[in-house]
Structure formats: structure tokens, C-alpha cells
């Protein structure tokens, strides 16, 4: 033992505390303050395109469209086994149980405010160029787009950050307009630029036109009671009258004509988002992929996602026999399915009966459980016709209407009825219904019209076009129960601003909508 040396080395006995502080002082080495930018006239185009890109994004199924549709009776996205849970995002929208951390609320907030910011960038920098007719036109288009994005932010969140285009000190939090201030700002902007905007005949409905400003003014006044606490039906009617009397717009006798592929201009369109499946526009609008079952593949469309469906509550309001808007079969030969509502046994392009992945027949049924459904649960909706020969299956070949003339007839009918002019409302509704017949289908004329009839008609005409939540709120029906949703609290008519936004702008009210 005497040779055994036991050496104990205390190699390290340390008590330590580390504090990490990060001083985020920015050192700007170089900044493009427009020196070369404004010398090249080609850059004017480059400045006006970004806010149009934000407009396109609102009509993506997962963006603004989702907040206006999945929260209502028109769209339901049940979780089907391992598909479509997505952190509860879709269930929460349907059940009205979202919190301010909801990913969609955050993404839409960020996207729309980015749109405002892009429009401001366009207004400010195009203003630095030598001014001519082109720069003036684009500045006015950008001012419309800024007003449009602010209108949407206000509709969703009822508080809108605003920073003037020439306010470049970004260390100051933008001021926040309350709902009335925001809608008044939007209205005054629209009135100011409207006389200077081009017409649809001059520039097409994929650009901002005088008609787009009239349509947004009609919508702003129709909803003014919600946004500003005061009814302004006559103002809504005034702008509808201007649009309806314009030769640029007409309700089509073929409802489905505007939803076919490769339709560029259409008599119904007031403002549209242009899409082209041959162009990479950064966003796609997968209007068939997202709803079709995995087995419903055809042509070059080989990836379908089995997602959004409609509720039985909405489905059961329809006159399925007589309304041309319920069903159209012109794409059956190349797709295997119809436009409108997809219910019952589904078929392939060659008429074969399709199956689910577990071998059971693919029969779409209205019954479902929001939290755990089978693959065939839910009636599907196809509004836009795909291009089976497309080389880019995740890009739609359809121009998507943001605002169209049939909506304006319905706005006028509603404003007239709310203003005490029931015969005028009936005339407008029946005019629209007279255009919604098809071969072998005659939609009956109404003999009297109630507010409930108008809401129903808006559903028939405009379903899945990103308008439903706004409509249900205006008619006081947003919080009512429908399939897989109980009655919900009135506070749910306003979305809370995302936590990430409230954290950085002390002027926002984090408790609104909670």
C-alpha cells in the first residue's frame, strides 16, 4: 500500500454566472437614399409592382381569404387523422377560439402592413421622379392600394397603424387609427384620388381604376355602421349607382364564365388579381389542389391535399335544383369533377369510381367531426377551373376577382332595404337572379325580400370569394352556431392584434378583440 499514491486533483470547482447583454445599436455603413434610383425611369414600374404583389397575396387561400372564410359557415377545414391539424390553426378559426399568437392572424397582419409599407415606398419614391402622367397615375394607384390594405386591416383588427409616406424616422412607432379614424381616412383618400384614376376600359381591371375606388367606397359605406357607428346607406347607393351605370361592367348571363381558366378580362370584374400558371408570380392560388381528395388527380394535377370543405349548414341553404351557381359540369370531361359543390361518390376522368387510400369508396358526406374526421368527410367546393395540361400545378390559371359587379348589385339591394326601399331592393335582387339560370334551370324570382334573403343571396353569389366573415358580422350572424361550432362571444367579431405587433408598438391596444 505504501506505493499507492492517491492523488485527488480538484480540476475545477467553479461557480459562475454569465450575463448576456446585447446592445442593438445599428451602425449604418451605406444606405440607398434614392440617389440612382430616381434617375432611371424604368424604376417607376419596379416601385408600383410590390404593392400589387401584396394584393395578390390577400387572395391566397391561407392568407386574408382564410380569415374571411374559415371563420364562417362557408369553409371548414376538419382535421382528418394526421392531416390538417396544423397546430390547431384551422380548428381555432372555425371555433372562434384563436388567441393573439395565432399564426394566421400574425401572417395576415404582417402581410397587410407590408402592403401598406410597400405602397408608402411607391408613393414616396415615385414622387421623387420628374413628375408626368405616368408617375401621377402610379402614385394614385399606390394610394388606392394603401387605402385598400388599411380597409382590410380595419375590417379584421379595428385598429390600423399609419405612418405618412414621407415619415422616414422609423425609430418612432407609427400612430394607430381607431376604427372610425381608419375608415374616415380610407374614404377621404378614395374620394381624393378617384377623379384622377383611369377607367377599366383604359387600363383593365388588373390595375386600380376609378371603378375600384367606387366599389371600395360602396363597401366602406355599407359597413360604416360597423366601422364608424353610423349608417350611411345613401352614400353606398350613390357609388353603386355610378358603377352600375358604367358601360365597363355587366352581370354575365353565364355565371361560370368568369371562373374558367385563362379568362383575363371579364364584364363582371372591377378589380382582379391576375394569375398565369406559366409565370412565377411568387404566390400560387391552388384553388383545386387544396380541397380535392388525394385520389382526385388528373392530367398534370397530381398533388391534391384533401383540405377545405363547406359546412352542411351552408350547403342546406341552397336551391340545388334551380340555381346555376350550385353546379356546372363543363370541366367534367377533363377533370372528372364538376364546378360548384362536390358531394357523393366521386369519379375519375374516365368515369371510374374513386376510392379513399384505405380502399373504401370516395363518397363526400356532410357529416364530420372537426377534430378527427375520416378522409371523405366534408362537401368540397370548386370555384375556379384548373388547367389539366399545366406545367405548374401549384399555380392557378385563373384571374381572381377581388371586387365584381354582382357584389355591387347586392350591396345596393342591401343598402336600399336597410334604408327602407324594399321595392328597389327586390328589383336589384331579382335582376341578379334572372342572370343565374342555365340550361334546364330557372331560378324563381322573389316576391318579397328580407335581410335574411339578401345574406343568403350573397352566399349563393359570392361563396368562397373571401367575403363571408364581413357579411356575417354586418348581418349579426357571425357568432351564431353552425356545423361543428357553438354560439360564440361577440368579442370574436374583432381579431386581436398579434402579440409580436403589440410588443413593439405601444400605441396598439393589445386587449381589443379579447
Amino acid at each position, binding site marked *: 500500500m505504501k*506505493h499507492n499514491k492517491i492523488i*485527488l486533483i480538484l480540476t475545477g*470547482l467553479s461557480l459562475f454566472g454569465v450575463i448576456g447583454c446585447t446592445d442593438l445599436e445599428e451602425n449604418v455603413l451605406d444606405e440607398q437614399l434614392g440617389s440612382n434610383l430616381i434617375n432611371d425611369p424604368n424604376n417607376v414600374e419596379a416601385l408600383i409592382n410590390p404593392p400589387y404583389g401584396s394584393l395578390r397575396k390577400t387572395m391566397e387561400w391561407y392568407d386574408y381569404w382564410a380569415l374571411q372564410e374559415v371563420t364562417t359557415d362557408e369553409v371548414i377545414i376538419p382535421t382528418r*387523422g*394526421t392531416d390538417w391539424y*396544423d397546430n390547431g390553426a384551422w380548428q381555432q378559426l372555425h371555433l372562434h377560439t384563436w388567441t393573439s399568437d395565432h399564426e394566421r392572424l400574425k401572417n395576415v397582419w404582417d402581410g397587410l402592413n407590408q402592403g401598406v409599407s410597400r405602397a408608402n415606398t411607391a408613393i414616396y419614391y415615385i414622387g421623387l421622379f420628374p413628375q408626368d402622367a405616368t408617375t401621377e397615375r402610379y402614385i394614385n394607384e399606390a394610394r388606392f392600394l394603401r387605402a385598400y390594405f388599411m380597409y382590410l386591416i380595419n375590417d379584421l383588427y379595428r385598429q390600423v397603424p399609419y405612418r405618412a409616406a414621407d415619415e422616414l424616422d422609423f425609430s418612432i412607432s407609427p400612430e394607430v387609427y381607431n376604427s372610425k379614424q381608419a375608415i374616415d381616412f380610407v374614404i377621404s383618400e378614395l374620394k381624393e384620388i378617384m377623379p384622377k384614376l383611369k377607367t377599366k376600359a383604359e387600363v383593365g381591371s388588373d390595375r386600380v381604376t376609378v371603378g375600384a375606388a367606387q366599389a371600395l367606397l360602396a363597401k366602406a359605406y355599407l359597413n360604416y355602421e360597423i366601422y364608424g357607428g353610423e349608417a350611411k346607406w345613401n352614400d353606398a347607393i350613390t357609388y353603386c349607382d355610378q358603377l352600375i351605370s358604367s358601360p365597363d361592367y355587366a352581370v354575365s348571363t353565364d355565371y361560370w364564365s368568369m371562373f374558367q381558366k385563362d379568362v383575363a378580362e371579364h364584364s363582371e370584374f372591377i378589380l382582379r388579381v391576375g394569375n398565369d400558371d406559366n409565370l412565377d408570380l411568387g404566390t400560387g392560388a391552388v384553388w383545386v389542389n387544396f380541397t380535392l381528395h388525394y385520389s382526385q388527380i388528373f392530367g398534370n394535377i397530381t398533388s391534391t391535399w384533401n383540405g377545405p370543405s363547406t359546412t352542411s349548414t351552408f350547403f342546406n341553404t341552397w336551391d340545388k335544383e334551380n340555381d346555376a351557381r350550385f353546379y356546372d359540369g363543363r370541366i367534367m370531361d377533363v377533370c372528372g369533377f364538376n364546378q360548384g359543390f362536390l358531394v357523393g361518390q366521386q369519379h375519375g376522368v374516365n368515369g371510374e369510381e374513386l376510392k379513399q*387510400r384505405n380502399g373504401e369508396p370516395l363518397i363526400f358526406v356532410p357529416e364530420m367531426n372537426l377534430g378527427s374526421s375520416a378522409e371523405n368527410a366534408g362537401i368540397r367546393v370548386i370555384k375556379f377551373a384548373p388547367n389539366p395540361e399545366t406545367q405548374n400545378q401549384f399555380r392557378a390559371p385563373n384571374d381572381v376577382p377581388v371586387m365584381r359587379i354582382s357584389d355591387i348589385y347586392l350591396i345596393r339591394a342591401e343598402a336600399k332595404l336597410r334604408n327602407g326601399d324594399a321595392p328597389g331592393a327586390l328589383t336589384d335582387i331579382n335582376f341578379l337572379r334572372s342572370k343565374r339560370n342555365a340550361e334546364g334551370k330557372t331560378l324563381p324570382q322573389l316576391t318579397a325580400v328580407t335581410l335574411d334573403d339578401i345574406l343568403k343571396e350573397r352566399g349563393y353569389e359570392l361563396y368562397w370569394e373571401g367575403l363571408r366573415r364581413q357579411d356575417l358580422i354586418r348581418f349579426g350572424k357571425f357568432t351564431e352556431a353552425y356545423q361543428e361550432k357553438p354560439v360564440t362571444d361577440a368579442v370574436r367579431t374583432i381579431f386581436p392584434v398579434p402579440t409580436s405587433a403589440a410588443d413593439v408598438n405601444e400605441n396598439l391596444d393589445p386587449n381589443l378583440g379579447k
Partner: protein
Amino acid sequence: MFLTRNLNNGIELGLNGLLVDKNDFSWDLGFNLAYIKNEVKNLPVQLIETGVASGQGLSGTRVQIITNGQPVGTFYGTVYQGLDANGISTYKKDANGVEVKEYLGSALPDFTYSLSTKLQYKKLDFSMFWYGTQGNKVYNNTANAIFIKGALDKGFNVTQEVLKSKENPSNSNAFSSRFIEDGSFIRLSNITLGYTFDTKSVEWLGNARLYVTGNNLLLFTKYTGFDPEVDVAAAANGVPSTGMDFTAYPKPTTFTIGVNIQF
């Protein structure tokens, strides 16, 4: 100006002993233990999300947060309470019947430890290295995305446990504490056995040693994935995550036979 603090308090203890030191026999033993407590303080926002889950039905799912009063790497989500009679997941709820989210533990271990030893007997030498962690959680994203009954219904392969379970194929694979597992482990990392030849009689040869090494020989853990010592990148908006496992390739067991010759 906010001064966010990421506070680490801990203690590290290392012991190395030469237990036997004779001419033809020696024995070294070393032990290391580190305990660390991490806590985030003064974060000017309520929370920062990270840990982006992968797989179908998991879009938008973020499993980890950085928030005040908790260590970094804290998992956050609903608390799984088993399957109901229909094979549908049930979760802990509050008095209003709303599913509650809780802190589900951190990917940072309570303590880490290692043990090394080396024995030399005449021309033979032997060394061994063990290490492990205690108290860290791992998110088994692989199981969350693939090993559920719904995946079997789609025609995917699943584990035997999933095959036998009463889970309903329509059950959602929502992220919850169901997929947060104890990542504690003890690993026999390395064993080397060597023999040094007597080279005095060979003038041109300086030294010659033959050895056999085995790496990653044993692993003791309750973790059901391949390997709890895993961290697949799943950053959100550039905020790094930790303790994420999604189809990570397991560590191989390797054997090496070698000869060292010096001239």
C-alpha cells in the same frame, strides 16, 4: 432599451485519480459532473417561438419557446392524457373546458456527467469512456409525424407499438406532451484495448502497438427514438432550437483495429 438576460448558474466538479501506480500496473480514474441552471430574464416580449415541427398535419407547429422565468429550450404545448374510448387523444383542460398549454420541460439537461478510466498491465493497456445526461427532454418529431395510426391508414409503415395501439386512424397527430420524451441517457462511448510489443531487439523499429477500439458500444435510455443525443435544426425566423429529433440518422457503432509503428 431592454437588457435581456440569459442567466446561467451552475457548478462543475471534476475528479481525477491515479489509483494504482506500480511498475507493471497502473489505474487512472476520472469523473466529471456538471450541473447548470439556465433562466431567461427581462425578455421584453411575452415569448419567442422556435422549434418548427416537420411532417403532415404539423404545419405552423412550433414546439419550443423562449420566455421569462424558464430556461432556453423549453418545450411548450398541451398536456396529453391518453386516448378516450374511441381512440381519440384527450388533453388536460381548464375549468372552462379549454385545453391548456404548459411548460413541458427543457432540452437542457439538469446535469451531465462522464467517467473515464485507464488501466495498464505490463504490455497491455485498456481505456474506457462513459458519459451521459440527466433530465433533458427531446421532441420526438419523427413519432409525431410518422408513428401514428393515421399514417398506417395511409399505407405508411409504423412501429409495432402503433400497430397494436387502440388509436383511431382519424385521430389527429397534434403536437402535445405525448411526443416529448425523457432524453436522459448513459452511453459507453469508447473502449480501447492495446498491446505494445517489445522492440528492443529490433534496431530499426522504434515502437509498435496493436490496438482494438470500439466506439458507441452501449446506450441506456428510455427514449423511444434511435438516439436521444440528437439535435436536428428547426430554427424559426433564425431563432435556434434544441432537442429536436426528426428522422435523424443514428450514431453508428464502429470498431477499429490498428497498428502504430514508429521507426
